[in-house]
């Protein structure tokens, strides 16, 4: 008796599971599409993505960059100094 039950359970899980996965992701497609459309309609921002990205990249390493720039300045100073001699 146990085997048929097990297979039934497996089939149930298959149908229920795939059904729900599709329902859920379909809802997500709908939600995402609506969301994107309304955002692009109400807040049309042609140029935003690019600066946003750049902003992110620049956020953390500022301190580092200043060090780097200091090092470079020093190196260039040295380089000019040596060139003179």
């Amino acid at each position, binding site marked *: 008796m146990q*085997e*048929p039950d*097990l*297979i039934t*359970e*497996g*089939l149930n*899980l*298959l149908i*229920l*599971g*795939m059904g*729900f*996965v*599709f*329902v*859920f*992701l*379909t*809802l*997500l*497609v709908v*939600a*995402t*599409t609506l*969301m*994107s459309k309304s*955002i*692009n309609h109400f*807040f049309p*921002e042609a140029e*935003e*993505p690019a600066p*946003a990205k750049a*902003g*992110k990249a620049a*956020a*953390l390493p500022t301190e580092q960059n200043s060090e780097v720039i200091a090092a470079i300045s020093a190196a260039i100073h040295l380089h000019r100094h040596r060139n003179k001699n």
Partner: protein
Amino acid sequence: MDKVLLLWEGSGLYNLTLPQFIMIAICLVLLYLAIAKKFEPLLLLPIGFGGILANIPEAGLALSALDQAISVLNPETARLFAQELGITLQSAAEEENRLAIKAAVKGLEDPVIYKNLKAIAAAQGYTDGMLYTFYKVTIASGAAPLIIFMGVGAMTDFGPLLANPRTLFLGAAAQFGIFATVLGAVGLSALGVVDFNINQAAAIGIIGGADGPTAIYVSSILAPELLGAIAVAAYSYMALVPLIQPPIMRALTSKEERSIQMSQLRPVSKKEKIIFPIAVLGLVVLFLPSAAPLLGMFCLGNLMRESGVVERLSDTAQNALINTVTIFLGLSVGSKLVADLFLTVETLGILSLGIVAFGIGTACGVLMAKLMNRFSKMPINPLIGSAGVSAVPMAARVSNKVGLESNPQNFLLMHAMGPNVAGVIGSAVAAGIMIMYLG
């Protein structure tokens, strides 16, 4: 001289059993694959190493204090255990007493007595093995896979998916591999080949999700005894995606289909990227509460990334935190590679079913793409369907590579990233359904 004997009798060489030896050899193979072949080394290296540690004879690194007390039962502890269990030890032979107590503990139903036995073991000086402790803290608590999933969320860019949301269907179709494998597992059980119950079958199926943390999370809830084999299978097959997928992809598509060029993805605004993880969470709230831990942490990680206001948290989630957790998660998974859990016919079943799951998932993703192509104006190259199994970002790279073979100008990588991350969501949803239905 007695002491030298003691040392010898306590040594690994004296106590090493054949199954332990085999397991150590298997773990060395895992290390080899991780290091020399770069098979998902971030996980397989600690898993393989943990597996060796777990199989060191007499070290008991993967045992709890109670298990250790029972495995090397001294007369005093035996007396105290027997008293707590309410059994009488008649036998003069210690080994017989040990087996009697072991059986009594195994059959024990009263959790209060169980707690008391643990207290007695601790008072007698037994301690949890190192790997057991790691397992308890990282996996049994459920925390580690969720924290890793948060880090993965913080590393994921949903831009390609948002530019083409229909690719979510590909991520849905590829989950068929999961459920078909469940059916395969219960079928094997029905045939009497192996003996899986429905929870174990579900945990095996999730290998087809091609997503490590999800597989570990689900099997830690539904079938912790199979966790070692399932995690090893999941990560190994994820590493093997470049070998498994291309033949299936080629068999199901014509050269023309593989050469289809897709239109360039539109730019996606920052606002869309911020709202997307909240939208996913909203659907979880409304329809699938049991997926809340997995998808919640994933969306939190992604929101930290995209919001741009908590760079420090996002950075830590992607680096120090996920790396730390990965080390201990790997060792903990390794603790489930002890010989008596792994060297069973069930493991062979898991390994076979796992690769079938990958194959079916791949095929369904490709077929779904072909189906969508019939009904859609915008052309979809069916090769990106295979990326729906997840295995981020390997599967997307495979789509790109197979695509380039047919048409050297056809760069599918970004297009394949959509179904690729959709597959992550898809298998987390599938995981939620299984946990709800069976957990």
